[in-house]
């Protein structure tokens, strides 16, 4: 799963940069293509608290993640690029980064 998360993280980051810096406005089409990967990540996250975090925090995070997914789907429906960027870059990407960073940290730990 980690590899998939990492791949999704970089794809979303690239889409975000192209929107933000290069004014690429057609990001809905790009995000549509990776919707199955996004859904897979969300389902995986919601399957259960296997991350060693407090249950209350996990529940809040799960609920927030569902809001993010809702926003992504709504943005795709409305062709709303601002909401789509916001939900992915300031929402989903934060979640993905947790695992990307975790992985990097773990690698660093292994090196020690």
């Amino acid at each position, binding site marked *: 799963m980690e590899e998939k998360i990492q791949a999704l993280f970089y794809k979303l980051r690239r889409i975000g940069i192209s929107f933000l*810096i290069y004014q690429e406005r057609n990001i809905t089409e790009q995000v549509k293509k990776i919707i199955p990967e996004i859904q897979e990540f969300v389902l995986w996250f919601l399957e259960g608290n296997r991350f060693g975090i407090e249950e209350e925090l996990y529940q809040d995070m799960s609920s927030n993640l569902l809001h993010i997914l809702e926003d992504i789907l709504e943005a795709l429906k*409305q062709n*709303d690029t*601002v909401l789509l960027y*916001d939900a992915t870059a300031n929402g989903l990407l934060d979640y993905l980064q947790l695992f990307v960073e975790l992985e990097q940290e773990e690698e660093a730990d292994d090196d020690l």
Partner: protein
Amino acid sequence: MTIYEKNLKTLAAHYPEMDRRIEEAQVESTLEIIEEVSLDGEKILKIKKDDRTCYLNGKRDAHELAQKWVEAMGKLQRDTPVLMMGIGNFFYLKELAEQMEKNLTIVIYEPSLEIFLKFLEMVDIQKWMEKHLIVFWVNGLEGMESKNLGGMLEQVLRYELLDHVKYFVLPNYEILFPEEAIAFVKTCRDVALKALSRYETNILFAGVMVKNLFSNARYLCDGYKTTQLVEVIPKDIPGIVVAAGPSLNKNIKELKRAKGKAFICAVDTAIKPLIREGIIPDMFAVVDGLKPVELVKKEEAQQIPLLTTLNASPEVLDYHTGMKLFFNEGYQFAEEIFKRSGHMPGDVSSGGSVATHIFSFLWKIGIETIILVGQDLAYTNNKAYADGTFHDKMDEEDTSDFIMVEGNFEEKVPTKPDLKLFIDWYNMYITGIKERDKKLRVINATEGGAKIQNTEIMTLKEAIDQECTKEVDIRERLEKLPPMLNPEAREWAVDYLKGIPQKFQKVKEGAKKMKKLYRKLDKICDKKNIDKKEYLSIMKKIEKQLKIIEAIDVYQLVSITMSNAHYMLLGEQHVQQQSLQKEGKEIAEMGIAYVEDAERCAVVFEEYAEELFGNLS
């Protein structure tokens, strides 16, 4: 006082009447504005329009889009025009205005009056307005129709700034206002193209122009003013613009029937074909500085009244012996003479071609129905001009890679970018007139070519049958007019023109003084530690000396001729140097080059003036 009221006051302080326009504007509700608070605590907008709902800011991070946009642009030079569509996410303006140094020119086009009004409620704009030149162009406010946006942008998009311009459509505006977004981008592109074309034309004509001006200025002493025609040409007869497009071949013979029942004005290139058909127009026009006299070299043409400009080909004016009509073109020395005539000032819009000049002239003298003939503005049947203009039989050209535009009779016709500019000019000009003057009718009787908006399309036969119903002897009416200058004013004008060489001597002397000042500046900047006081003092002296030269009325001619050098200077102003020393050296170097050119011009022009005005009597 609410933020909205304060903003109205701020806007009114920068743009008189703006507050009234806003308060009197009629809001036509085409969308719903939903206000929310973002997760980072900012008021943000969501717009519901045509069954679609879109955010204008991020609901989690309201600032990020704008912050990153401004960061990505890097440092902008002073005067850089930033053209933005949309103000619904005001953080774009906030970031731009606050992060950038002073003096940007920010033009904001907002297609929705409702969003603009909401924006005025949300944030205080006073500090930003004081720091930069900010222009709001809002659909729905009086005088700010989107079709007039181009005219305003022309003031902003000067050639020397083209490299620096930033265009931006706020995210989701292209979704919510797709037509307006396309029109905005197209307008920006067209205006930039125009600025480029105007600059290139300026360079080409600059050298030729001053020589022509002096040569033609002699004719001002016995010339006529276009505004004099208002008194003698009846408004209820049609004016006919005879251009030399390829379709003129189809209906040229028909024009015979209009003679004596209309005011027929031909472009220079149409003169020969008309005379060959036995048609003597009531007037013809020459405005081009490079037009060869051969185009009008026909004995019959010599006495036809001529509408012309001071920078038209002098060969043509010398060949022509009849009545010459001039209009105000803004040349300071000529304006002095026009003032002495006592006649109403009156210009003619250029539009870029001789036919557009005639069109504007006819409207300005009060003609209510204008008929266009031979005004193809396209390569009808793949030809550029009518037969008998440049050649007896014009060659067909390969138009496969030409722009295609809507035709009068055909769905699409091929045209070139310069002709497309004339089409755009007609569209804009006629629309503008019709808003003020409901009586104007424009009949396009070209019988081919490109479509011009707001014109009635008919054959020339139909147009003549319908409109040319009243007899009028134009020649007799024109012959009654006295020249614009009475004998006393004429004498003054002759003396004034004879005094022009001395004015150039003054320009020469002023340029020499400036050169000395620039050299001094250069010397100051050689030192390791620049004396800032001395630096500023010399800059002030340069500025003062420049003002003295600029006050000499013929200096304008020097500056026009040097548009190339001037461009270099203007362009340089927009590149801020890293140090005062570097900046000073740069200014001195460019300044010396500039004044040396100015001096050279003044010497040459003094000679021209002596040669052309010396024997005036």
